[in-house]
C-alpha cells in the first residue's frame, strides 16, 4: 500500500520507513513557530518546569504579530516577557516584521519539514510541501523542551484541480467554495492534499491562501505537491528543500474530489461561519462600514496588486474605512516600490503596519456594535472583529476592494 504526502512526511520525522493513517507516531519536529497570541503563557509554564531547557534553540522562531504595536500596558507586558526570553535564550525573533505565517514562508519553511506552530493557520506551510499544524502552548512547550511530540497520522482528502481560474476569480474564491462544500468540520483530523494539472496554474500566493484556510474545514494540515513554482519561490528566498515528497499512485485517500477551476465564481462567506458561503452576487448591496485587505491569507504583494488595480483612480466610499495591511515588511517595501501604496493613499485608504490587524479583532480597526466588515481575513465568527453583535463577510481582495469603493458588497466588475 502506498503512502500519502502526509504519511511520508510523518514517517520521515519519525525516522521510520512506513506509517499509515490511524497510527500514532513519535516525531522530531523540524521547526517550532510561536507568536504573541500565546507565548507569554508558554513562558510561564516553562519557568515552572522542574528541569527547564530547550532541546534545539535553532528550531525555534518567535514572532510578535498579533497585537503589534501593543495596544495596552497588559499587551506590552506580555510582549516584553516574550522579547526578554527570546533574547536570553537566543531564539530567532521577529517583532513588527509581518504576520507570522508570511514571515515563515519568506524565511524558514522548507519542503518535507514537519512544523508545529502555536497558531491554527500553520497549515499554510503546505504550499511549500511542508506539514504544518497548529498546536496549543502546552504541546508547543513539550516539543520545545523535548524536541519531539506525538501525532495521530491523519487520513487524507485528495483534491484534484483541473483547468484554470477565470479572470476575476481568485484562490480565495476557490478555497471558500471547497470549505462550503465539505463544511466546517469536513476535514476534521484530516490532511487536505492538492494536486492535478490545475495546481500548476496557481501562484505561490494562491497556494498559500488555499492551504492557509484549510483549518476552517477542520484540517490538521494541507499539502501541495512541490513543483517548479514552489522550487523557484524557495530558491528566490535562498533555501533548499529538506525532502520533496510525492504521494504514491496507490496511496489511500478517504475521499477524492475533482474540482474544475473554470467553474469557480466570486464567493462570499457570510456571518458567522466560514462554510456559510454564497456566490458574491447574492450579497450584492449589503451595506458595509469597513473593508480590510490583508492578513496571512491575502496580504501578499499579489493581493495588493489586485486591490490597487481595482481602486486605481477611484475613491473609498464616504463613511467607510478601508484598511490596507501588507503581510510583511518585504511586501510593504515591494508595494511601495511599485507605487501601490500611492494608489491606495490617493483613494483614501488607511495603510497600516504589517500585522494581524482586524483579522483577529483585538488590535487595529476593531468594529463596533451593529457594524459590518468585509474582509480578506481568515474568519467571520461572531464577534471575531470586535463587538459581539457585529458582522464579518469574507471575500477575495478584488471583492473587498470593490466593496470599499461602493460602500456595499459588490464585485470588481461592477465598480
Amino acid at each position, binding site marked *: 500500500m502506498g503512502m500519502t504526502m502526509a504519511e511520508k512526511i510523518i514517517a520521515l520525522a519519525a525516522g521510520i520507513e512506513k506509517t499509515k493513517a490511524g497510527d*500514532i507516531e513519535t516525531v522530531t519536529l523540524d521547526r517550532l513557530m510561536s507568536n504573541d497570541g500565546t507565548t507569554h503563557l508558554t513562558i510561564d509554564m516553562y519557568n515552572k518546569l522542574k528541569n527547564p531547557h530547550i532541546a534545539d534553540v535553532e528550531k525555534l522562531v518567535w514572532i510578535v504579530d498579533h497585537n503589534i504595536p501593543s495596544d495596552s500596558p497588559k499587551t506590552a507586558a*506580555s510582549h516584553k516577557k516574550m522579547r526578554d526570553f527570546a533574547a536570553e535564550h537566543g531564539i530567532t525573533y521577529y517583532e513588527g516584521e509581518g504576520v507570522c505565517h508570511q514571515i515563515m514562508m519568506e524565511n524558514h519553511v522548507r519542503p518535507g519539514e514537519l512544523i508545529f506552530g502555536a497558531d491554527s493557520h500553520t497549515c499554510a506551510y503546505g504550499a511549500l510541501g511542508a506539514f504544518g499544524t*497548529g498546536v*496549543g502552548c502546552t504541546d508547543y512547550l513539550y516539543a520545545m523542551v*523535548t524536541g519531539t511530540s506525538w501525532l495521530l497520522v491523519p487520513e487524507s482528502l485528495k483534491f484534484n484541480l483541473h483547468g484554470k481560474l477565470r479572470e476575476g476569480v481568485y484562490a480565495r474564491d476557490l478555497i471558500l467554495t471547497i470549505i462550503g462544500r465539505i463544511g466546517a468540520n469536513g476535514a476534521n483530523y484530516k490532511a487536505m492534499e492538492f494536486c492535478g494539472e490545475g495546481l500548476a496554474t496557481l501562484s505561490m500566493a494562491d497556494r498559500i491562501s488555499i492551504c492557509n484556510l484549510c483549518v476552517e474545514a477542520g484540517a490538521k494540515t494541507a499539502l501541495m505537491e512541490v513543483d517548479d513554482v514552489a522550487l523557484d519561490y524557495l530558491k528566490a528566498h535562498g533555501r533548499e528543500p529538506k525532502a520533496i515528497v510525492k504521494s504514491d499512485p496507490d496511496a489511500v485517500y478517504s475521499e477524492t474530489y475533482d474540482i474544475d477551476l473554470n467553474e469557480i465564481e466570486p464567493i462570499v462567506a457570510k456571518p458567522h461561519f466560514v462554510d456559510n458561503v454564497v456566490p458574491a452576487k447574492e450579497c450584492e448591496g449589503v451595506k458595509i462600514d469597513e473593508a480590510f485587505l490583508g492578513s496571512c491569507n491575502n496580504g501578499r504583494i499579489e493581493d495588493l496588486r489586485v486591490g490597487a488595480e481595482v481602486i486605481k483612480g477611484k475613491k473609498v466610499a464616504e463613511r467607510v474605512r478601508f484598511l490596507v495591511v501588507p503581510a510583511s515588511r518585504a511586501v510593504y517595501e515591494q508595494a511601495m516600490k511599485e507605487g501601490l501604496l500611492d494608489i491606495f493613499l490617493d483613494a483614501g485608504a488607511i495603510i497600516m503596519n504589517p500585522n494581524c490587524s482586524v483579522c483577529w479583532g483585538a488590535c487595529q480597526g476593531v468594529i463596533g456594535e451593529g457594524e459590518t466588515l468585509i474582509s480578506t481575513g481568515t474568519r467571520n465568527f461572531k464577534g471575531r472583529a470586535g463587538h459581539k453583535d457585529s458582522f464579518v463577510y469574507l471575500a477575495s481582495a478584488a471583492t473587498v476592494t470593490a466593496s470599499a469603493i461602493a460602500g456595499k458588497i459588490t464585485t470588481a466588475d461592477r465598480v
Partner: protein
Amino acid sequence: MGKIFKFYKDVDTDQIIASQYLLFPTIDEMKTHTFESLNSDFAKDVRPGDFVVADENFGCGSSREQAPGVLKALGVKAVIAKSFARIFYRNSINIGMPVIVCKDLYEAVKDGDEMELDLENGVIRANGKEYSCTKLPAKMQEILDQGGLIASLNREE
C-alpha cells in the same frame, strides 16, 4: 452532580474566549470573560463541577489554549460534545481537562439540567437515564491520568 450549560454546534474558540483578552497576563484574569458573546452570565453562574454540553465540532477555529484554559480555571469538570475540533481536543487533554464524545446526550438534556460523569466507565447519568460515551485513545488517557502533558513531562525528567 453538576449543572449543564448547553451550547450549539460549531462553537468556535473566539466565543469561548475572545481575542481581546488573550494577551492578559494570566488565565485567571481572562476567565471572567468566558463565553461572553453567547452567555454573559456564564462565568458568574458556573460552579466547580459543572459541565458544558454541545453539539458537533466544539472548539473549532483558533489554536488558543486559553479556551480550554478558562473553562478549566472556572472549574468546568468536562466538556461533552457530539464531536470536537482537533486542536481544542488535544489542548484540553494536555491541560488535564476531560473532553468526552457522547452522541446521544445533546438531544436528551436541556440547559440547566443536572448530570453526573463516570469517567472510568465512560457513562453519563442525566434525568434518570444513562448514556455511554466514547473512550479516549490510550495515548490521551495516559496524559490525562498523569494530570496533563506538563505533569507528565515533569515526571519523565
